[in-house]
């Protein structure tokens, strides 16, 4: 019996995966590109042949609502991701200390991660409730707030409140990744620094920081990619309102295609979103590659 060459075997083993990737992602992506040049409409299929050239893109780029949804998304990403990184690193530093109850607390950190995203959104929506919400009750009872506020009903606070709910759910991921990196630092290394008379800040800067910077930057990019896609939490908490103040790019595409049924134009918005995501994903892959080389 003739042996198949290694390369042939390798591709056979990959074939099922490639079929799924092409069928569920590759082909649809190409179709999205096609749609974006047409006047496709959700419920009248014949419209997908109406070629309109770059009209959709020109309209998309000139659309003030879309531009403001990009602004909302950027605000959401920058605020939530930077808070998640900051909190995550601080919590990891805490959990790396020795104290009673540490194991319990490390287990508790997993809770927000395991909580389904939609349940998280619903939970915070109830907590932020304008009439009977726990946040209003807590803040007025301790005297920090004079009267009940509609946290999600006020365009100036809604997006921030949604971001806070996202931060609560996702800072634990950063904490776990950072904690794993901290645990690789040897005691000898820290003690040597201590003997050299390094103060806390110097120890952090020269010993701890170099050990965590690579995994934390990977977490940063990973969270940025995820946060940029944000949809679920917005849908459940605010549906993009009030006054479009929480409308993000994913939500904009969803509305355009499924509420207004303009598939062609929705596809052009989607492609703009994809291009921005692709840039972020490229940075992520670059970081992974570099880690793969040094590891």
């Amino acid at each position, binding site marked *: 019996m003739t042996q198949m060459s290694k390369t042939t075997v390798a591709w056979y083993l990959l074939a099922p995966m490639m079929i799924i990737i092409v069928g569920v992602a590759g082909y649809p992506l190409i179709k999205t590109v096609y749609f974006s040049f047409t006047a496709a409409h959700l419920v009248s299929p014949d419209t997908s042949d109406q070629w309109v050239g770059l009209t959709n893109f020109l309209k998309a780029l000139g659309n003030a609502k879309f531009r403001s949804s990009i602004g909302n998304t950027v605000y959401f990403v920058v605020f939530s991701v930077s808070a998640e990184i900051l909190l995550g690193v601080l919590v990891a530093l805490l959990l790396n200390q020795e104290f009673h109850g540490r194991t319990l607390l490390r287990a*508790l950190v997993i809770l927000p991660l395991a909580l389904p995203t939609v349940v998280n959104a619903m939970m915070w929506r109830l907590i932020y409730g304008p009439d009977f919400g726990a946040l209003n009750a807590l803040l007025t009872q301790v005297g920090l707030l004079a009267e009940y506020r509609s946290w999600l009903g006020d365009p100036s606070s809604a997006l921030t409140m949604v971001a806070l709910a996202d931060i609560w759910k996702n800072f634990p991921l950063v904490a776990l990744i950072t904690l794993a990196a901290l645990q690789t630092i040897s005691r000898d290394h820290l003690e040597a620094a201590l003997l050299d008379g390094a103060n806390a800040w110097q120890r952090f800067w020269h010993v701890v920081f170099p050990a965590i910077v690579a995994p934390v930057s990977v977490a940063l990019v990973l969270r940025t990619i995820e946060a940029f896609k944000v949809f679920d939490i917005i849908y459940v908490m605010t549906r993009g309102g009030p006054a479009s103040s929480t409308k993000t790019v994913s939500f904009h595409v969803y509305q355009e295609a499924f509420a207004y049924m303009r598939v062609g134009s929705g596809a052009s918005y989607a492609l703009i979103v994809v291009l921005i995501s692709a840039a972020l994903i490229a940075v992520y892959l670059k970081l992974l590659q570099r880690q793969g080389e040094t590891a």
Partner: protein
Amino acid sequence: MTRRSPSQTIMIYSLALLLGAVLLAPVLWLFIMSVSSTRDLTALPLTWIPETISLENYAKLLGGGGSTVAESFLTALRNSLIVALSATAISLAVAVPAAYSFSRLPGRRRKSLLFVAIATFMMPPVAIVLPLYAMMGELGLLNTHLSLILVYCGILVPFTTWLLKSNFDGIPMDLDEAPIIDGANRLQVIWHVTLPIAKPALGAAALMAVLMAWDEFFYALLFTNDIRAKTLPVAIADFAAGRVADYGLISAAGILATIPPVALAYFLQKSLVSGLMSGSVKG
């Protein structure tokens, strides 16, 4: 080494308490709401500890008795289970040989393909959802479990392939050589040599896959609109959007939807952490 001053010790314990409270309080409150009566929850000022504790909301959701609430909740639960478990099983069956190929039979073009796979599951769903919706419509698959299983495989296959690949990399290659010389094919090697060693990694990958599928909302929202295939996240979003704001009932549904993933996560805590690690930090 860590001789701490009393003030440092106090600070560490206060921060630990604060962290514990921040992590636990929202979920604890969700639980309290779920066992409270509407009267207690709408009392002003809010009393925090309900006067009466009742499991009525849970009974409403689980009790059946032909109520529409119970029917929609229980079928959504069943749909979620079917979709998450099927998608996970198929994904692992596809991902194991692929991960083995990436790990053991490397090549330049295959390396680029791995990066394509990683990019696939990170891509925003809006990039592909419109054609997928049209395709599912043409195939008559809207409102079926199969539509969600297929789409979830598109996310889970690349993800679990990547997780498993980075784990297989840690298994010595020499182990494959002897059976190959004895005439075993690669599938036999995977089954008899690699998988027994990689069991923990397989567990971690399965766990991550189930959690991701259980959590998915966007496709489920768009591809299902009645109880035939509607999953739990969509059912909960429906409850929460209902005109009658029954906080207790919504909370109970949330708690019930949270129990399976949280139980899984704690049961397989080590797998979860290692899954998260290799899934986000290693190439």
